């Protein structure tokens, strides 16, 4: 589904990603771990198309389509979703209007008619229930005044509504208490299917107890230096990242 080959990227002339190779197949869950500043969030940003990142080498394709050639909105329309580490508050844009606009722009990209009001509301209700999202928040301004947990749950609601092929969760577990973590993880687990894939970016093994990955990769200094099964996460939890740093000096 996603194929990253020899990806190099920089911000303001500083090289951040230094040759990333990663293959993600349908139905798979990949976890990307690594110490602070290793390039985890940068990888997510580059994939989603954040403007200040410059790709200097390599290719990224999703189902054969060149992702790097597309504007951020077209990547989303092709089925890529990034759950933000810090979801943005946008006062004056209602959550519901935002969801509707996003959903219908994606539908229109695929030549589908917009959902009528009734079906849209039905869908919203259903997905809200699925991710245990407070109905009251749906009518509020987008993320405005939401707690950290509410913001992250809103990301999962959007994920559920937009049904992307590939979802990247960028430190979705950061700042969550144990209940919120459970709710968010349950949501993701319910959304997992043989047709979609997930990339979980996280510091901690904790999230992976709830969402069990098929593969774990360690990102260090802009490259994937180690890959393995879910046991690798446990090993990292136990030993920390220092041995990785040692090995890759």
């Amino acid at each position: 589904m996603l194929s990253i080959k020899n990806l190099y990227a920089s911000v303001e002339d500083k090289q951040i990603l230094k040759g990333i190779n990663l293959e993600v197949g349908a139905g798979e869950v990949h976890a990307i771990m690594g110490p602070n500043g290793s390039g985890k969030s940068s990888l997510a940003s580059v994939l989603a198309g954040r403007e200040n990142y410059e790709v200097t080498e390599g290719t990224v394709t999703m189902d054969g389509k060149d992702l790097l050639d597309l504007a951020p909105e077209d990547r989303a329309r092709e089925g890529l979703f990034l759950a933000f580490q810090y979801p943005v508050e946008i006062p004056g844009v209602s959550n519901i209007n935002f969801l509707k606009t996003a959903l219908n722009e994606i539908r229109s990209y695929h030549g589908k008619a917009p959902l009528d009001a009734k079906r849209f509301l039905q869908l919203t209700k259903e997905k809200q229930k699925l991710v245990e999202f407070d109905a009251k928040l749906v009518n509020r301004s987008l993320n405005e005044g939401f707690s950290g947990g509410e913001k992250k749950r809103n990301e999962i609601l959007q994920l559920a509504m937009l049904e992307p092929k590939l979802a990247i969760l960028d430190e979705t577990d950061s700042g969550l208490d144990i209940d919120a973590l459970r709710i968010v993880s349950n949501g993701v687990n319910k959304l997992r299917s043989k047709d979609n894939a997930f990339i979980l970016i996280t510091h901690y093994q904790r999230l992976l107890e709830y969402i069990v990955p098929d593969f774990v990769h360690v990102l260090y200094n802009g490259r994937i230096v180690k890959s393995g099964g879910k046991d690798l996460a446990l090993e990292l939890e136990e030993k920390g990242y220092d041995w990785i740093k040692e090995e890759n000096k």
Partner: protein
Amino acid sequence: MSQQVVENSNSLSLKDSLIKEFELTYSKNQGNEPEALLQKREAALGAFQCAGIPTIKNEEWRFTNLVPFLKDSYQMQPSGMPGSDVIEKAIVRATVKGLDAYRLVLVNGQIDFSFSQLPDYQEGWLIRPVSEVKGTEAFAAALNSTLPIEKYPFAAINTACFSDGFYMELNNDFQLDKPLQIIHVYSDQENLFLQPRNIIKVRRGALAEVLESSVLMSDKLLFVNGVTEIQVQENAHFKHAHFQVGEAQERWIMHTQVEQLRDSRYDNYTLTLPHADLVRNNLNVILDGPSTETHLYGLYMVENKHVVDNHSLVDHRHPNCMSNQLYKGVILDGGKGVFNGKIYVHRPAQKTNAFQQNNNLLFTPNGTINSKPQLEIYADDVKCSHGSTVGQFDEEALFYLRSRGIGADTAHSLMITAFAFDVTSKIENEALRNHIEQLIEKTIAQAQAVI
């Protein structure tokens, strides 16, 4: 012989044309108008002659250079009246979908009752042409009662020259059951300079909602130098919205002078959208009694080479008054906006609550906004605040929206609508609110097509 100024005999300067217009109308008015009014006109002409057309050296006009708008020559009176088909079209263009309202139509500044839809006057209110009521002593006495014309040269020359406009009066405790939409239709074969004078008197305990808008039905230039004087008496409530949506050849200098008496409330919504190339609003609210409430909401979207200048004054003269002002501006590519908001709290005006906020969004880096909050406070037990911001699009928010599949244009549009929401959400009338939101969306779509 030293330098001699060579005057083009065909085109008088605007100042001279205005003075000449005064002379022409003055001789006609003698005998028809009471001595008190004639004296006010003469004094006003003196004030105008003394001040002249303001330049950027005048502090109140520092940011708005009128020179580019003064080059053209204008007729000071309409050369004729448009046909009824033109007026009908204009009314259709001014129609607000879903708005259930009475309608008052003015054509080139004069009331046309045949196109208006008004209830019976027995109900407790009346609307008359100013030309009909200006002969009374009471009218003359009330004119400019709170407007210091020596400070406002355009209001001064309006006072000297005006011939017509609308006079509206609501009796004590009368509540107008529907909003009144006032449609100002302008049309002429020549460039036209008009100086309408309107008076609104909302008597004790009365309630009314008025929406003003205008339509230009010709391709000639239109310069309107209008003055509206409003008195909101004890315990009355007047809601006043002004939609300024026009054509590129329109220039507007509008002076609105409001006097509020004890326990009254005045709400003003000034919504300025393209395409008039000059809009200057002077909005002065004089709080002439204690315990009043005032809300001033403004929204302006300014396009390339055009100027929208909002000057306001809230004059707190008595205790326990509350005023709240929120103006938001979107400066499109190459546009120029001015906000100058003055709050004056006099010494006796203790327990004043006065708030002011002006926020601006620059659509592209190629726009200008001059924002100048001015607070002068002479009382010591007051709550006053003001804030002024100028910003650009929040890139992170834009990226967030786009990362959800929302296209850049739609994302911009959502964010501007959200920016304007603080103002538009304050419009209680749903039809008006929808109307303005649609106009905003249309304006953004046009602005994006240009970039």
